[in-house]
């Protein structure tokens, strides 16, 4: 009897768990080995589910391979649901009736989509240029008349002049919000009309041509918590800035590869001495309150940013004057060249508010009311109800840029009528909510669910690469780690792999790398890497002896609020104690950690992590002003050199020296890179899969 009861109870506990631990041995329909996480994963999947696309026998799709005319004909025929026709005599000299794509090639020809060449050939093995693809997609949408009307392009792109005249109409239409069947190429965000189209691009284009973007609907994003402020200049917390960039815009913004691209600025010039920036603003840009944006607003906002934010103050150390020259021109005169001024102005905090609001509010935080949270972005703020939602709606008078979309820059289209950011503290609940359709997406999902989610037929899981790096920061102002040898000993003893593995688990979510600029960034370097991940306990012991360390207790402040911080500390402690370190972990909550780290008397090490830093000059961990107080004359000199220099190669050479120095002086420990998991529902189309998440240019199907 007792046994039976026990069995029933155990069964009750275990059975519900079984349902979520099913892992597929073969991939579900629509998934290919090399498309999970790909930019065009969803379009490929949806076509494959309808049997329009098939991959290769090895289970791959090769989305980045160049596409042939035969493949394109097949995709278009199947997508348009044309019936394959196989006449006994081939209409093309070079397509035998036994060709694998024969029926579809003829079908496409009969439908008038691909006509073949005047010499009677079809050239099935030839590539398709992107201009040709644009024309094909335009034709299956029946846009002949619209395309013929276009003589001056309604779009802008760096290589718009290289688009052949016959394709100009098709290409232009493909980048307009209502068609959207073309995407940009990188680097540079180009049209690349002459380049061969990729298989993924054909899948994307055909899918979107047949299922055009939909305006309307409410996009529901579950997020980790409430915003603590929606005035972008008040806080650096990610969740606040993430909501903010839907409402506010900056003078420049990041393109897909993290380089600055103009946003509210139309054009700008830099004087020959590198000291005077003249920003020509876009005309006719409207704020949410209906007012036109002018240089006065820009002047007031950037001046406020220069007072209120760390980055702003950093730039304004070198600003001699910052003025509105006329209605649409703002001029910044520097005391010493700052090569990355546009990059400073990309940051999510350097947003443009109306001057009238700044005049009233000053440097106090804007209140969370629509009258004060006013920007120029594609969505405008409606309300914040704590623990329920932050609500934004499409800004109908949004002034669109003519540039093709590129990262956070270029054309921004608010397809969804409304966005709701809904705080849901539990990661598992966010995911289950996405599965059942309560939310469209789940942010900051725990990686341990990845195996289950990446092949989920209702969802799309994206690993956001890069996301950040985990670190331990030494107190270099006071206490035991003012000694260089102590810090070197610390670094020498560490074995990074077990630490990162314990902290982030699934191998797709972390990697070992010495560079504090990510592999995906231009300033990535292996300089100094010989001192990363040394696992050398003997060397550490020797350095400790030289430093005269006698087992004095070391206070390491960490928190379980971010479990990875705590785990890295615990595993490190174990390794370090083998070398003779005597470490006391002080586990506190995040609020306490940030309090303690401000007082140099109270700690020796603290745990934290850094997100993406967009230029070497901007690393907080290298700044003497930031917690830990890294006061190195050499590092200051290197960074100063880089600030003034604008030539990439010279800057890079200096950065390599700086990274060598970083590993000699060990201001902080770099453990490794980590990646975040983002999940959204399949009907959410147009997601960019880049380092920042945003919901313009994204539509909900159905």
């Amino acid at each position, binding site marked *: 009897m007792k046994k039976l009861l026990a069995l029933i*109870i155990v069964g009750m506990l275990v059975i519900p768990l079984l349902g979520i631990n099913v892992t597929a041995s073969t991939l579900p329909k629509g998934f290919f080995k090399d498309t999970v996480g790909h930019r065009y994963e969803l379009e490929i999947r949806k076509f494959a589910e309808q049997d329009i696309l098939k991959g290769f026998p090895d289970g791959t799709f090769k989305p980045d391979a160049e596409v042939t005319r035969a493949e394109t004909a097949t995709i278009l025929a199947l997508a348009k649901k044309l019936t394959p026709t196989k006449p006994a005599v081939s209409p093309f000299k070079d397509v035998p009736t036994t060709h694998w794509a024969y029926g579809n090639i003829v079908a496409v020809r009969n439908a008038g989509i691909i006509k073949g060449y005047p010499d009677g050939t079809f050239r099935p093995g030839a590539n398709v240029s992107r201009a040709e693809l644009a024309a094909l997609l335009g034709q299956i949408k029946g846009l002949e008349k619209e395309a013929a009307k276009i003589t001056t392009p309604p779009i802008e792109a760096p290589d718009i002049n290289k688009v052949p005249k016959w394709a100009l109409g098709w290409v232009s239409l493909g980048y307009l919000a209502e068609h959207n069947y073309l995407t940009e190429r990188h680097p540079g965000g180009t049209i690349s009309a002459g380049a061969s189209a990729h298989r993924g691009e054909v899948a994307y284009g055909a899918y979107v041509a047949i299922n055009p973007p939909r305006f309307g609907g409410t996009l529901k994003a579950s997020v980790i*918590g409430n915003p603590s402020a929606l005035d972008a200049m008040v806080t650096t*917390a990610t969740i606040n800035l993430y909501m903010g960039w839907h409402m506010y815009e900056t003078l420049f913004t990041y393109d897909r590869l993290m380089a600055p691209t103009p946003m509210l600025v139309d054009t700008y010039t830099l004087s020959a001495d590198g000291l005077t920036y003249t920003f020509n603003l876009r005309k006719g840009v409207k704020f949410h309150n209906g007012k036109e944006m002018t240089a006065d607003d820009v002047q007031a906002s950037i001046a406020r940013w220069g007072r209120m934010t760390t980055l702003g103050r950093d730039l304004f150390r070198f600003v001699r004057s910052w003025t509105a020259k006329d209605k649409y021109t703002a001029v910044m005169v520097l005391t010493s060249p700052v090569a990355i001024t546009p990059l400073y102005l990309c940051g999510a905090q350097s947003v443009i508010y109306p001057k009238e609001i700044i005049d009233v509010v000053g440097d106090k935080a804007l209140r969370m009311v629509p009258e004060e949270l006013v920007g120029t972005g594609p969505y405008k703020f409606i309300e914040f109800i*704590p623990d329920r939602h932050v609500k934004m709606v499409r800004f109908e008078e949004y002034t669109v840029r003519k540039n093709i979309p590129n990262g956070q820059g270029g054309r921004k289209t608010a397809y969804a009528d409304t966005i709701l950011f*809904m705080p849901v503290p*539990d990661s598992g609940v966010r995911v*289950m909510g996405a599965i059942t359709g*309560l939310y469209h997406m789940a942010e900051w999902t725990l990686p341990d669910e990845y195996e289950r989610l990446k092949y989920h037929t209702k969802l799309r899981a994206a690993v956001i690469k890069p996301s950040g790096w985990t670190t331990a920061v030494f107190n270099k102002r006071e206490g035991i780690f003012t000694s260089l040898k102590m810090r070197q000993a610390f670094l020498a003893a560490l074995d990074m792999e077990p630490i990162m593995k314990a902290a982030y688990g699934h191998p797709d979510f972390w990697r070992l790398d010495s560079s504090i600029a990510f592999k995906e960034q231009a300033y990535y370097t292996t300089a100094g890497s010989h001192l990363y991940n040394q696992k050398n306990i003997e060397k550490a012991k020797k350095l400790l002896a030289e430093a005269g360390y006698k087992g004095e207790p070391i206070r390491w402040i960490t928190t379980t609020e971010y479990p990875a911080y705590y785990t890295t500390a615990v595993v490190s402690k174990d390794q370090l104690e083998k070398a003779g370190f005597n470490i006391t972990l002080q586990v506190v909550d995040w609020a306490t950690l940030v309090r303690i780290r401000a007082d140099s008397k109270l700690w020796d090490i603290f745990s934290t992590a850094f997100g993406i830093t967009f230029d070497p000059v901007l690393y907080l961990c290298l700044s003497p002003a930031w917690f830990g107080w890294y006061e190195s004359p050499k590092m200051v000199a290197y960074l100063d050199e880089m600030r003034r220099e604008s030539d990439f190669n010279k800057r890079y050479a200096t950065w390599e020296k700086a990274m060598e120095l970083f590993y000699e002086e060990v201001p902080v420990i770099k453990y490794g890179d980590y990646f975040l998991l983002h999940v959204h529902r399949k009907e959410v189309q147009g997601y960019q899969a880049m380092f920042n998440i945003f919901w313009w240019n994204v539509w909900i199907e159905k």
Partner: protein
Amino acid sequence: MREYILKRIAALIPVLLIVGLIGFTLLSLIPGDPAAVMLGPEASMEDIIALRSEMGLDLPAPVRLFRWYVRLFQGDLGYSIFLYRPVLQAIIERLEPTMLLTFMALIIAGVLGITMGITAAIKRGTFIDQMVMSLSLLGLSIPSFWLALILIVFFALTLGLFPVAGYSPIEDGWWKTLHHLTLPAFTLGFIQSAFIARMTRSSMLEVLNQDYIRTAKAKGLGFYKVIVVHALRNAFIPIVTVMGLSLGGLMAGAIVVETVFALPGIGQLVLASISRRDYPMVQGILLFIASVYVLVNFLVDVLYVILDPRIKYV
């Protein structure tokens, strides 16, 4: 009776003052900096110091406590800098989901607990008794967040009967509100029903052995009359006491359940406020919860009189 009620109400005031003092002391003892949390991980020292003085955190603790009391007597619970609204307003905004959740959970706990308790008592020593008591043991030992997740996986994810999480305010329709609250209320209610079931069982067992029950049975009264009218009525006092006490448990449980189900209630508010050191908010909620608890206990005492005419307060 009226005098008694007035006396009890007057006694509330010192209780609440003491709650305020204890809450304030505890909050001052834990370290942490609301200004630094507010300003984000990359904030500079100057900004943090400036915001601290703006929030009045640079003043000594006794001064802050005194100011808090002064404002309290003016009916002002303070202002939450994180939520950009007065504390009282923030609490009132959160009242609806928490009250409904607690109320629904209490009904579920009561119905489930009393039914289980009576069943176990009647079928004492049988397989059914063991089953019911094991179930209540399960309820006592299961962590609420875990039960919540299991219920979500089964009823929301697999069967799709209820929403996974979230809340729908009454103004959007009663039915939707109930639909959203069913799983959280059941989570809370099931766990609390365990206490009630155990109390009902033992209290019923005591009564069932009484002579008047035997008499009632001998008279040939039906099952309903014997059990509900004669036995339960007399066993009810300890049950009501437990139910009143369990309201405290429900409110504590609501903190976890609201967080898991993402309900915009008091529980989630208090948790978030503690982690960001929103002192006025935590103080305000503490005071509020203490008042509710004291009031419910008071109501239970009054209920005794109705349930048992022999009890009289002078």
